[in-house]
């Protein structure tokens, strides 16, 4: 880390600074704190839209930790993920006209080998249909793209309106992901299906005992207090007990945390997954086994900066989708 001289110029860290940092980390350890990676950064990332949610413990009264025994799943399993890309193709006044591309795929794993099970893609336009002459909208549709309204407000804001268009993109991506899950369920009704991200929007499949959501980002915290401490400071190879959180439409979802890798000297979220499952009575009982084989998914390690949380098969789904995206890569 750079230091700063009395005249304000930046200087290389001095031996004294290193020593102070070492003492700081030692002190943190003495205080039972866990030292982090200590990497320099400028910002804490993008603003979090939904920082908090609610959940209640369903496996015991409070959230506690359970060690997990690694046990690889030998059955066939499908991994589902999606991607989205967009480009602003023009401006109708100050409102963006966005061309979007979404794709989702399922890779089927059997005997360790991955193969493509299902793929869905959609390319479309997001335009301010209500602000445009109907003839122009018709001409856009005549190009062969589905055209979705970007639902802009009356007050124009080019960046905000672009975000609105991207929200359409988000919805379309989730839609093709669900379509892929449906396809897998049709073709392989007995298969485990692991979806990248939350089970939000999978209400139609509520009750599906072999559907799992694996969440890597932890923007929304459903736990608080000691429960949150227990969850976010999980040791490697442990899971939390199961909670139930409310879904998007008020539908309940079972959820628990699983730590894949030791996070000491790293970020508090390093290697931390949150698992979601439709609320079935056997979730607490099945949780150990599910956590065990998800823990086994630590290997192989994905070639990605998110490798601590990105399961290798899920990374492969992304790779397939990127490869198929052609010019959208």
């Amino acid at each position, binding site marked *: 880390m750079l230091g700063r001289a009395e005249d304000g110029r930046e200087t290389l860290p001095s031996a004294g600074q290193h020593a102070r940092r070492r003492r700081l980390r030692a002190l943190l350890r003495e205080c039972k704190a866990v030292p982090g990676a200590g990497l320099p950064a400028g910002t804490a990332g993008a603003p979090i839209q939904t920082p908090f949610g609610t959940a209640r413990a369903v496996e015991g009264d409070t959230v506690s930790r359970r060690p997990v025994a690694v046990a690889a799943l030998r059955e066939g399993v499908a991994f589902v993920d999606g991607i989205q890309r967009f480009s602003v193709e023009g401006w109708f006044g100050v409102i963006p006209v966005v061309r979007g591309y979404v794709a989702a795929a399922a890779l089927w794993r059997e005997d360790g080998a*991955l193969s493509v099970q299902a793929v869905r893609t959609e390319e479309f336009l997001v335009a301010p249909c209500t602000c445009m002459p109907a003839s122009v909208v018709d001409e856009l549709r005549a190009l062969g793209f589905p055209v979705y309204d970007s639902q802009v407000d009356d007050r124009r804001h080019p960046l905000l309106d672009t975000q609105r268009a991207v929200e359409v993109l988000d919805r379309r991506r989730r839609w093709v992901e669900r379509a892929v899950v449906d396809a897998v369920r049709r073709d392989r009704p007995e298969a485990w299906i692991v979806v990248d991200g939350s089970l939000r929007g999978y209400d139609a499949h509520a009750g599906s005992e072999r559907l799992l959501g694996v969440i890597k980002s932890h923007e929304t915290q459903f736990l608080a207090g000691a429960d949150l401490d227990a969850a976010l400071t999980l040791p490697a190879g442990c899971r939390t007990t199961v909670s139930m959180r409310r879904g998007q439409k008020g539908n309940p979802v079972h959820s628990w945390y699983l730590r894949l890798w030791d996070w000491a000297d790293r970020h508090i979220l390093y290697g931390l997954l949150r698992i979601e499952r439709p609320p079935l009575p056997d979730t607490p009982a099945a949780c150990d086994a599910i956590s065990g084989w998800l823990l086994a*998914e*630590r290997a*192989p*390690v*994905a070639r990605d900066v998110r490798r601590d949380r990105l399961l*290798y098969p899920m990374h492969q789904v992304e790779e397939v989708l990127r490869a198929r995206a052609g010019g959208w890569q």
Partner: protein
Amino acid sequence: MIPDRTGPPIGRVVATEQAPSSPYQFNFWTAVDATIGIGAIVRVDGGDGTVVYAVVIDGVAYSDLGEALHDVLATDGQPDASPAPTVRREIRLWTARVLRHLPEEPMRPVPLTAVHAAGEADVELALRMESYLRTSPPTGVPVGVYVAGGMRAPVRLDANFVTGPESAHVNITGISGLATKTSAVEFLLGSLFATFPASKGGVAAVCFNVKGADLCFLDQPGTLTEEDRALYEDLELSPVPFEQVHYFAPFKADGINLNTLRSHPDLAETVQPLVWGLQEVLDYHDVLLNRDDLDAKAAAFIDFLADRVVDREFRDDWGTVHRVRTFTDLEGLFRAIFDGLEQSARGEIWRTHHIATIRKVRNRLLNISVRCKGLVSDDGSASDLPFGAFEDRSVYVIDVAGTDQLAQELVFTRVVSRLREHLERRDLGVDNVVVFVDELNKYAPAEGPETYVRKMLLDISERGRYLGLVLFSAQQFRSQVHRRVVGNAGTVLFGRMDMDELATPGYHVLSPTTRSKLAALPKGELMVRHPHFTHPVFLRFPRPAVMTGPDGLAAFPPAPDVPFEDAVVRHLVALDRNIAPAEVKAILVDRTETEVREALIATRRAKPETPLAYFRAALGPRVRRSVAPDRRAGSTPLQPVEDPYAS
């Protein structure tokens, strides 16, 4: 006509900015379990009727593992950790060198389409074999079988590029014992004999056996495996040994036991002595005398002897008529000159030649019969190859394995010179002769003093194809052979190679992977370079259908050397098993060894129906008449002459 594709595609051409597809090279991927490897021939169809044939020269496999450390992490540092639930994605990425574009023009980068394994008909087109297999008459010479992914395709060389006139000569390189160089040459020779186009005339081979018993059993059937027989079938060849093989070997120093490992009584009759006298040797004195010996004065005197004295009546200055045909005769002439000069007190000059020069030449020439004892005789008896009567599809093996280097060089030089002379006159008996020389490192080294043998090999390499004189050569280190000798070889075969050799500049045209494959090539597999092939190809060839040296020695152990009389008996019994040894020994009573040797050589050369009668006759009046001067009857083999000029 481009053949249809066989089977589904095995891969797809890929090109990136860093590794683009070019008209001569491209990359393609395959499934991990694709039956393809280095040396495989593939085809790429352009979709517009164009086809590109290529040979795989390199391959890599890699996974999406970002860092080796990630694998350590994934296994918790335990090498024996349980396999991961997902097998990491791998890629097999191959590099192929283009063999041929169809049509040839316009030459464009290889299209980014599917890749298919080549079928048998594809291999023919890829290697441009149709240009000499679909002609009348076809001139293909089977050299091996291309094997890949369960497909086998025979590969043939163009006889016009093996024996001339377009290109000629075959050179083979590889580690001793592992490269199967001799086997490859034997097989190729058999193949050449079996398929040589009649329109190109007759063909024979002269093979110099320079080590062990390598070439001593070419007429005996060898042991073949089922795979060998299948390869012969693929190549449409019959696995039979050479039908006509003529063996020649000099005598040992005793002058009666042949210096060859093919001396078993059952085979002895097939070996002819190779013995030369003064006449045969004098023209090749350059080979035997080094540059220090051959100053201008000495050379002039030798030329005088060759032109004016040898094999003609020569009257010396003191009235004696000499007819010099043998080293013994020559010694008589020298003695007469020295005695005459001494007695007549005429000083030190004889016919413009100083006596010191005469003494020097005498010492050097007379030493030849001592240094090459067994090959060069004092008494003028000669037994030579049948120059002028060579037979089509015959092999003439000259076994010089047991002789010293000087004698070997004399044999090479004289035999090759005579072959060239006869081929120039078109009176050898055949139109094409293959000369096989092993250990080319030794006889045509890249460095070192100029030798007569090296000059001779260079001459064959550079001019032989116009005469039908073809060099099949082999060596362990191609880089250590004279560049013009190996460079003139139209067809080059590589067996298993030494890594040090492969590191020399001559092999940098090959990809590192190809070089690695060469360093580990199994027996029976060769990399073949031929003028019609744009890039070398790997082929399998069967064992030659002849007995190997070690097998031959086990089946036909060499007979031990025996005393003079017993050796004569053995020679005659080999010609006729009904001859009684006692009868032979009775004939030999009171005969000199020189007489007997002459008669024996004459008998072996004639191969009469009744050898003993012929021998007796040859030993009788006819032989006595030819031994004219009385002093010669009692002459003994020349002893080494002390060299007064030696420093």
